[in-house]
């Protein structure tokens, strides 16, 4: 009895949410977890200013090290991303990222569902290069400290998981709200609205982490395989793909989050998610 990828994936996403945000009691006081585990990064996007967060955010960590007085480039975080990317590629987005789960849930709200023009897939690369790598290093103060530009000006995950919960718990923070927060709230609201109409709107258009992992899809160990002997060209896989990828034409697409919807939909079992290479499969 085969369990569909849809069910397996949803469960793992929920577990990943629980593991990355285990310290739920912290919501009451609005305090952060401060233990040593926070030097390690989640694979997915999860703000480390979230009271429940038990690990660091990889994009936040990248900016923290890039913007620090001592360093301009983080070998540690890049090494982790290299490892996650080579092992899983963008499957992290599909199976482990809490913010991805949130976007999928928002998308379930009934509405007309829209396509995303291909040109909108590019901003995330620009955001990655400019806000995560360049600005923290290039725009520094007299001590050589740079701002975490993506976290500060853009990231809706931080506004939601960190900002809203901390503001709820602390009156002193509420008094400090200014124009920057209005900007970030606008981005959060735009993200939420976008996700209602477009599947994983933030992932596809803005997420710098997804941009990084997508680059690994061509070599990731866990990947998509299409058996050309079994494929009838019916196109069901392409029609069901939320990320608007054609698995047959482009199984290593940088937009594919390995959600397995195509594999579930394939009538001949030609499409599958696997760690095995093609040669060993057709044996």
């Amino acid at each position, binding site marked *: 009895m085969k369990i569909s990828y849809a069910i397996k994936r949803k469960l793992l996403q929920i577990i990943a949410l629980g593991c990355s945000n285990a310290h739920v009691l912290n919501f009451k006081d609005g305090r952060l977890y401060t233990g040593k585990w926070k030097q390690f990064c989640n694979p997915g996007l999860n703000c480390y200013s979230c009271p429940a967060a038990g690990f660091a955010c990889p994009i936040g960590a990248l900016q923290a090290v890039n913007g620090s007085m001592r360093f301009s480039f983080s070998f540690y975080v890049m090494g982790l991303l290299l490892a996650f990317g080579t092992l899983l590629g963008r499957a992290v987005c599909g199976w482990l990222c809490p913010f991805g789960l949130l976007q999928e849930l928002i998308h379930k709200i009934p509405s007309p569902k829209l396509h995303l023009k291909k040109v909108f897939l590019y901003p995330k690369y620009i955001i990655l290069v400019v806000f995560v790598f360049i600005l923290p290093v290039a725009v520094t103060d007299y001590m050589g400290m740079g701002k975490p530009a993506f976290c500060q000006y853009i990231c809706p995950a931080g506004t939601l998981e960190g900002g809203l919960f901390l503001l709820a718990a602390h009156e002193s923070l509420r008094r400090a709200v200014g124009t920057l927060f209005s900007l970030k*709230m606008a981005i959060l609201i735009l993200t939420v609205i976008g996700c209602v109409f477009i599947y994983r709107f933030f992932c596809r258009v803005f997420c710098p982490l997804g941009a990084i992992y997508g680059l690994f899809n061509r070599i990731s160990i866990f990947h998509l395989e299409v058996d050309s002997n079994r494929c009838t060209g019916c196109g069901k896989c392409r029609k069901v793909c939320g990320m608007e990828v054609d698995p047959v034409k482009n199984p290593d697409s940088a937009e594919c989050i390995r959600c397995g919807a195509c594999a579930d939909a394939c009538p001949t079992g030609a499409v599958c998610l696997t760690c095995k290479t093609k040669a060993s499969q057709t044996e």
Partner: protein
Amino acid sequence: MGNKPKISVRTACLITACAFVFYGFTRGEAVTVLNKAVNICLECIGLG
């Protein structure tokens, strides 16, 4: 990409990943991450 080159790229990436993590760790980057992660980053939550 054929299979053989793919496997060697993956191996190279994983080895590089280990080297990067080790080097970054030993030069104190993880402590920087920890310090940032355990103190409320007012910038991150939109309060500058």
